[in-house]
């Protein structure tokens, strides 16, 4: 057995967190805490890059598999990545250090505890994407609730308690049914090992109920309309770094879960429920776009736009077309970069003016030009302008949808227009226009660390917009194999 690289990815942040926990909290020690956590997360990112480079793109099998007995004859601690999951691992490892750099201004109290929570969160999120056993997956999936609850509740805004509770209980309620389904799968198929379950298949007569149980969990986490209401609250109240983690990675867990488990384990049921997903996705795209249009709070607007973007993702996944699923994965990666950047952009102006209301801004383009340029880049990426990563994802999803269902595709395309409308209108109201609020004149442009973070996010957004091949090459074989397996299962039923 080779070096357990995935386990080290999961364990390294925890080691860093433990180190932080046991260091004495003296005066000025906050800086040390930040360097330690930054160092840990960057090391983790480098490992993940190494993982990506040593990943064999030509085979669809799971790689870097680790398999240890955990509970004898029942659960194995099994990890592995394929083309679908590896990008999310890299994304998580990439976003976390940026989050840690960004906590400069926003978190005033208990910085050390905040960093510990972020690091633990990172390790759980990577665990979700690596887990190849349903129980291990569930463990990581649910464990992430604890640090996120604390991040929102301790360091959040004025309504933080309500938001933290809503976030926790909503997600928990969705997930418990998944636990029932996982245990049922164990008794039906005799294993919870994902690879074995792929080979064995699950008896078709149980698939519909199991699919619904998994769906209840993923739909809340995605979030899909109409169970999305926790997301705007959580985003608005969470500190910037928390919002970034939530938008960039937490939401992707569910999209990943749909591909890996709903499609992979229950193909027959997925076929049955595709109309349901289409309907909910289209509603999400149209309705939440319209809701986003009328928002007065910037963070809320971006939160609703996330729901709309995730609507595209679920739509793409259930087209079961090569383009659709690839588009969904790229859209998730792109949304991870862009929404993280947008929340950071909001964080930048919020730190200076302590207001997230759109109406309190306007005409800041001459005062903080650097910020305005970068904000524009991410606005355009969010609405899917060609040349940004947002375009690649949306285009592929719509391509896949047109192949499968013309009407749905046409309606979903409308969402692209709405998306352009609310994003551009947001940008116009915040950046352009007359300078009415004179306090804005005191604003200073991006400082070094903010500049660095946003550039870090801008580079891949543009790079993958012009040249998405590295992403597509990584996922192509695995997605192809997944679709083949899916179709084979449908024929055999």
């Amino acid at each position, binding site marked *: 057995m080779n070096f357990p690289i995935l386990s080290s990815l999961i364990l390294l942040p925890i080691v860093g967190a433990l180190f932080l926990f046991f260091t004495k909290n003296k005066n000025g020690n906050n800086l040390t805490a930040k360097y330690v956590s930054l160092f840990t997360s960057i090391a983790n990112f480098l490992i993940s890059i190494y993982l990506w480079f040593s990943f064999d793109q030509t085979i669809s099998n799971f790689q870097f598999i680790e398999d240890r007995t*955990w*509970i*004898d004859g029942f659960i194995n601690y099994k990890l592995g990545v394929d083309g679908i999951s590896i990008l999310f691992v890299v994304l998580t490892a990439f976003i976390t250090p940026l989050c840690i750099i960004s906590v400069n201004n926003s978190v005033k109290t208990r910085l050390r505890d905040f960093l510990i929570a972020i690091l633990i969160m990172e390790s759980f999120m990577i665990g979700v994407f690596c887990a190849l056993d349903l*129980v291990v997956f*569930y*463990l990581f999936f*649910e*464990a992430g*609730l*604890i640090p996120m*609850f*604390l991040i929102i*509740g*301790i360091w959040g805004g004025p309504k*933080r*308690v309500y938001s*933290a*509770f809503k976030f*926790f*209980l909503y997600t*928990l*309620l969705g997930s*418990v*049914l998944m*636990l*029932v389904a996982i*245990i*049922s799968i*164990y*008794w039906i198929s005799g294993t919870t090992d994902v690879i074995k379950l792929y080979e064995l298949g699950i008896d078709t007569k149980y698939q519909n109920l199991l699919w619904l149980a998994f769906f209840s969990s993923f739909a809340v986490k995605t979030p899909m309309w109409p169970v999305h209401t926790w997301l705007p609250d959580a985003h608005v109240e969470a500190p910037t770094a928390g919002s970034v983690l939530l938008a960039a990675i937490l939401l992707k867990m569910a999209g990943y879960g749909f591909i890996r488990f709903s499609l992979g384990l229950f193909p027959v049921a997925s076929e049955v429920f595709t109309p349901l997903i289409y309907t909910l996705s289209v509603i999400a795209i149209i309705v939440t776009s319209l809701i986003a249009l009328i928002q007065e709070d910037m963070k809320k607007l971006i939160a609703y736009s996330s729901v709309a973007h995730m609507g595209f993702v679920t739509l793409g996944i259930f087209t079961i077309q090569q383009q659709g699923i690839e588009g969904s994965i790229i859209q998730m990666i792109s949304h991870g970069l862009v929404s993280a950047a947008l929340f950071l952009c909001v964080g930048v102006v919020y730190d200076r003016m302590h207001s997230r209301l759109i109406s309190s801004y306007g005409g800041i383009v001459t005062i903080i030009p650097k910020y305005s340029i970068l904000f524009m880049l991410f606005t355009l990426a969010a609405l899917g302008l060609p040349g940004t990563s947002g375009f690649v994802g949306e285009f592929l999803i719509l391509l896949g949808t047109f192949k499968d269902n013309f009407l749905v595709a046409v309606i979903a395309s409308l969402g692209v227009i709405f998306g352009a409308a609310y994003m551009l209108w947001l940008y116009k109201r915040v950046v352009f226009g007359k300078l009415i609020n004179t306090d804005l004149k005191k604003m200073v442009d991006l400082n070094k660390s903010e500049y660095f973070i946003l550039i870090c996010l801008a580079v891949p957004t543009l790079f993958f917009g012009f040249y998405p091949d590295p992403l597509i090459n990584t996922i192509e074989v695995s997605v192809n194999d997944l679709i083949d397996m899916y179709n084979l299962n449908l024929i055999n039923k």
Partner: protein
Amino acid sequence: MENLNLVLPEIFISLSIMFLLILGVFIKNSSKLIFNASVLILLITAVITFNETFIVNRITLFNDSVVIDYMASLMKIITLLGAFLVLVISSNYLKTFKIYKIEYPILILSSVLGMMVMISSNDLIVFYMGLELQSLALYVLATFNRDQLKSSEAGLKYFILSALSSGLLLYGCSLIYGFSGSTNFDVISSQLNSNEYVLTFGIVFILVGLAFKISAVPFHMWAPDVYEGSPTSVTLFFTMVPKIAALTVFIRFLYVPFLNLIDQWQMIIIFLSIASMLFGAIAAIGQTNIKRLIAYSSIGHIGYILAGLATGSNEGIQSSIIYISIYIIMNLALFSCLLMLRRNNQYYEEIEDLSGLSKNHPLLSLSLLVILFSLAGIPPLAGFFAKFYIFKAVIEQSMYFLAIVGLLSTVVAAFYYLRIIKVIYFDKEKEKYDDDHSFWLKFSLTFSTILILLYFIFPGQLIDVVSRINII
């Protein structure tokens, strides 16, 4: 007579009680001595009992009225260790209230003796004898802080309601005896005929009596008042130790004499389980006193344990025993925290008093965080695995309704655990609490918290321990 050494633990503990009583009469100010001696006695008894775990077969003694098997030995050890931990962490609390007296350890020892008899009983009369011995000691323990009105009230309430339930239980026993002609479990089991309706009445009466002892809904009314009124260290004892014995008797009753009547009692247990889970979760939401809240939460946890028993399989029994073991550890940790909330010789037990605890006592708050999330059943903490095994056993029997109701009630229950965490972490801080705690208190908190936190690394060990239990 050659098998007398198999009941050596019981003999040893009863002789010790008598000896300590005499000692207490003749030596003045001997409370410290007797405390230490009792702690030692509990440990020695646990070691003696540990020897019995190596016995492979089921052995019956005294005309088949006492049974020694692996489950009995295991549950006795858990009982003894539980009582041991209660004794060592409660001494400071007792001193504060000036009730550090010789009766306290002796009463605990005698209730433990009663529980051990209950655990080993294979006969209705032996079982009843053990039950009354432990109950009598518990009534006195509840009123131990006799200068406080609430404590006396708790004891009296407990006494009256418990006597009522004992009456029901005895009535059930007499019905069973009337129909089977014996009080021995094994004989009853071979004599029973499921067509006798009156027999079902007998079972129902016995189940009511037992449900009362473990405070399952709808026989739970005494629990919140008694838990709130009793001295905290006694509440700790109540939530941990008697439940083990009652659970063992529950298992033996259902699975030795009445296994053939599973159709008759399964619905009752499922009802008790669902009612306890839901009621425990919902009623706890409105509580402001931590001890009352723990009472409702323990009602909820009993619901999960009963869900395991309702399955009618070995897996279910094992999962119930795993659950109660983990539950005891969590309870121990929670009460250790509660006993640390002391300021100027006064103990605080309102949820409000925890407000902003994380600012002044980061470590204590972190332990509470771990404990409460574990009680709520959030992975990867031990409480999750406890629930996981229960639902695994429940779903194996295709009892999906029970599993789904149980899991949904964990979501409701999560709300009130979160509320405490919210008070600790999100609210404004209050004055500092004292920091000078006894070694054993710190030890039990650290030990149990680490156990809860790191249980996920070696979840298999506990399964190995209980997997030898094979009742059916």
